[in-house]
């Protein structure tokens, strides 16, 4: 039982990191209908910036903030320079561009920081929380609290502010939103900035959680998060969050209990194919498409 | 009744199509006689295009039966219905935009070839195929545009191209979905002439029309739909004086048939 709860909490922590990653991807898809594979490159940049900032200042909050700022800038640059001019072409064109950006980011990280796995200094040791016989690692608490806080802030922005309303309107129907006086170009940029900043947090958290930052750290998440947002119903943000957390739990339990030699990373795709067969519109329905 | 049945090209019995809770077409029955032009009219959202989509196999009917002459065709996939001799055009034109005008028609011409794998292997577009396809373009009056791209045609010419393409199937029944909308007065006259000629060559036509004047002067009979249900059926003269029809059109604001 106690082992089960530990698996559960581990799954929840991993799932919430997936959720942070998938969130930005779902936001971008919702607004531009682009599969933003390079999002995982932004996440890797977040991991590196966070690491270097942490080494320089020894502060978790500075690390997070620096990563968010840098990634927001990178995200907006990708949108303005590459995606926006390609919007009029069929979807595979921006998709290939995105893959090319991702490849380039991985290489830039490798050239600048070296091909090795870098670790966070051990100074961030947090004491575990013990509840009865169950002990929850300090890292897990940090990850869960940070993710939860970010999700809460995003929920507040999208549901309770003018900006959120404009973002929703733009993703529903860009021409209509534009006709209603929404500056859609600016909304798109804000979407990219926010999504990328959140990916940066995910990058820093993963770096701390696994104590690993390396150039290709985005490779598996890049495609796994695609599967997640499909399962969540492409473009649906709550759906993506739900799917991400379920996947994190499923992976943790699979590794914890199942004896099948099934690769953990294939689970997302298997889930995706099952979803396609029974519910092509994803877990949570979204009418506009 | 038996006399009429003998001459029936299309018979629709109790056809319904629901989208979730929306009854787009609700228990509609009518028929098209051989050599007839039947008009399907009604206000916006009456279910006319849905009717077409069910008859041509784009959607499955929720209920009801559809017969093409003796054969039951409801529920068959679109390509199977097309190959049985139902040609159609689209309200929002759908040309094969990356192809030349001639090749657009050539696609319809190939239908017999698609029936078997071996027949679909030979090279298309020999001089005989070309001549055949040109004849259809000539019939609709756009043979001069044959070798140009279909993506640059005007709306009127696109509607003609869609008719030529449908005729290339040599259909028993031709479905025309608002072939007159968006055309100038002159183009409308030409198009009416074209539809009459098509009928005289022996094709049976079922058409959706918004323009009352066109529908009244072109069609032998009219079926009026409203809210997915059949409201009335009869000759243009009967429909013009039918109170329910007048109410359906005028009672709900003039915008419906503006």
């Amino acid at each position, binding site marked *: 039982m106690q082992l089960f709860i530990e698996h559960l909490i581990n799954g929840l922590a991993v799932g919430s990191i997936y959720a942070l990653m998938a969130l930005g991807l779902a936001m971008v898809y919702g607004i531009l209908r682009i*599969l933003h594979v390079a999002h995982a490159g932004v996440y890797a940049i977040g991991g590196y910036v966070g690491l270097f900032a942490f080494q320089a200042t020894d502060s978790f909050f500075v690390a997070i903030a620096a990563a968010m700022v840098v990634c927001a800038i990178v995200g907006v640059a990708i949108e303005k320079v*590459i995606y926006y*001019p*390609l919007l009029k*072409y069929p*979807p*595979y*064109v921006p998709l*290939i*561009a995105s893959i*090319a*950006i991702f*490849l*380039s980011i991985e*290489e*830039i990280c490798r*050239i600048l920081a070296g091909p090795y796995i870098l670790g966070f200094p051990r100074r961030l040791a947090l004491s575990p929380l013990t509840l009865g016989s169950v002990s929850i690692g300090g890292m897990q608490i940090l990850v869960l609290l940070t993710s939860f806080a970010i999700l809460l802030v995003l929920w507040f922005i999208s549901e309770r502010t003018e900006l959120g309303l404009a973002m929703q309107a733009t993703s529903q129907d860009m021409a209509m939103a534009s006709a209603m006086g929404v500056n859609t170009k600016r909304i798109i940029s804000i979407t990219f900035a926010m999504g990328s900043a959140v990916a940066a947090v995910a990058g820093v958290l993963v770096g701390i959680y696994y104590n690993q930052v390396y150039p290709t750290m985005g490779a598996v998440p890049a*495609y796994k998060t*695609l*599967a997640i947002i*499909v399962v969540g119903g*492409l473009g649906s943000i709550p759906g993506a969050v739900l799917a991400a957390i379920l996947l994190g739990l499923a992976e943790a339990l699979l590794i914890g209990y199942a004896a099948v*030699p099934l*690769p953990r*990373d*294939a689970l997302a*795709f298997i889930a995706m*194919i099952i979803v*396609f067969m029974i519910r*092509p519109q994803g877990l949570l329905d979204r009418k506009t498409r | 009744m038996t006399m009429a049945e003998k001459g029936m090209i299309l018979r629709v019995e109790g056809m319904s199509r629901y989208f979730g809770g929306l009854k787009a077409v609700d228990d509609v029955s009518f028929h098209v006689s051989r050599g007839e032009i039947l008009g399907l009219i009604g206000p916006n959202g009456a279910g006319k295009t849905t009717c077409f989509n069910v008859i*041509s*196999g*784009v959607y499955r009917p929720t209920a009801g039966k559809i017969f093409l002459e003796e054969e039951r065709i409801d529920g068959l996939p*679109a*390509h*199977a219905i*097309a190959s049985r001799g139902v*040609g*159609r055009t*689209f309200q929002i034109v*759908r*040309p*094969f*935009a*990356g192809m030349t005008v001639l090749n657009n028609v*050539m*696609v*319809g011409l*190939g239908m017999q*070839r*698609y029936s078997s794998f071996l*027949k*679909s*292997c*030979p*090279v*298309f*577009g020999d001089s005989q195929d070309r001549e055949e396809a040109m004849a259809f373009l000539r019939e609709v009056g756009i043979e001069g545009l044959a070798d140009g791209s279909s993506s640059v045609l005007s709306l009127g010419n696109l509607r003609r191209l869609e008719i030529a*393409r449908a005729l290339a*199937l040599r259909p028993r029944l031709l479905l025309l979905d608002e072939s007159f909308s968006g055309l100038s007065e002159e183009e409308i006259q030409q198009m009416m002439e074209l539809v009459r000629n098509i009928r005289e060559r022996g094709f049976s036509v079922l058409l959706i029309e918004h323009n009352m004047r066109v529908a009244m002067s072109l069609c032998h009979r009219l079926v009026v739909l409203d809210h997915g249900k059949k409201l009335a059926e009869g000759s243009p003269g009967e429909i013009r004086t039918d109170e329910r029809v007048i109410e359906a059109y005028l009672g709900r604001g003039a915008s419906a048939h503006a």
Partner: protein
Amino acid sequence: MGGYFTTVATMIGIYALVASGLNIIVGFAGQISLGHAAFFGIGAYSTALLCTKLGLSFWWSLPLATLITGLIGALLGIPSLRVKDDFLAITTIGINFIVRSIFLYVPFFGGALGIGGIPTPTLLDTRLRGEYYLTLVLVLLALTTWFVHRFARSWTGLATEAMREEETAAGAMGISHVRFKILAFTIGSAMAGLGGVLYAHFVNFISPDDFGFPVSIMLLSMVVLGGMGKIWGPILGAIVLGSLPEVFRPLVQYRMLLYGAALLLVIRYQPQGILGEGSLLRRLFPRGRR
């Protein structure tokens, strides 16, 4: 002519063949696929198993493995009947991941170590190595290119293109999207399988990573870069993308970055492909084919 040039040219020839197959699926039928490396791999693993476990000769294994891959392609093309565009792209990525996982985790396929000892083919007592093998690849490339040309000019090709342009209107013209999509996946996969066979017998040793998602990206990039739906597009794309890493080889450290940047530049400024409508090459030489 050194062995190095021959090796690079052989690889380019193989990739051109595989990319031409992808062009049938993506270019002619309009079905986006980001999992083509899976079929490349299925061809390679089929021939590797047929030759090393069953002792078949290359000349028997070649058609057999091609056929097997075509049939599996028909099966894995079924999702295209249900999902489109972006959904299909992600599904095919998933197929690629799952196929690679099977190679990697099922012991029968040799796991991470892959399969070695795949024989070099012989013809008339001559082992086909170096230039001989290159010749074999080029002959098969020429044959498949002729086949693609024939396909593009056939009624089947016309129907496939009509389906790509307007699926609903094609249905109204009697064209079954089921039949022509599955056919495109079968032909395209079979060509990938043929390329896989040539690859396996060329390098003599294969492992799951040779057929991962990055290879699928490269293949799709070749098709898009050259110009989708153009017969010569994927071949030109394979030459450009196949030789770029070699051109950049002296800059070992920056090689892959330059590759990524070059791909990005082309797709950003020539999104229709080098041979596509309105491309620089077409504007410079306006009297092109077709």
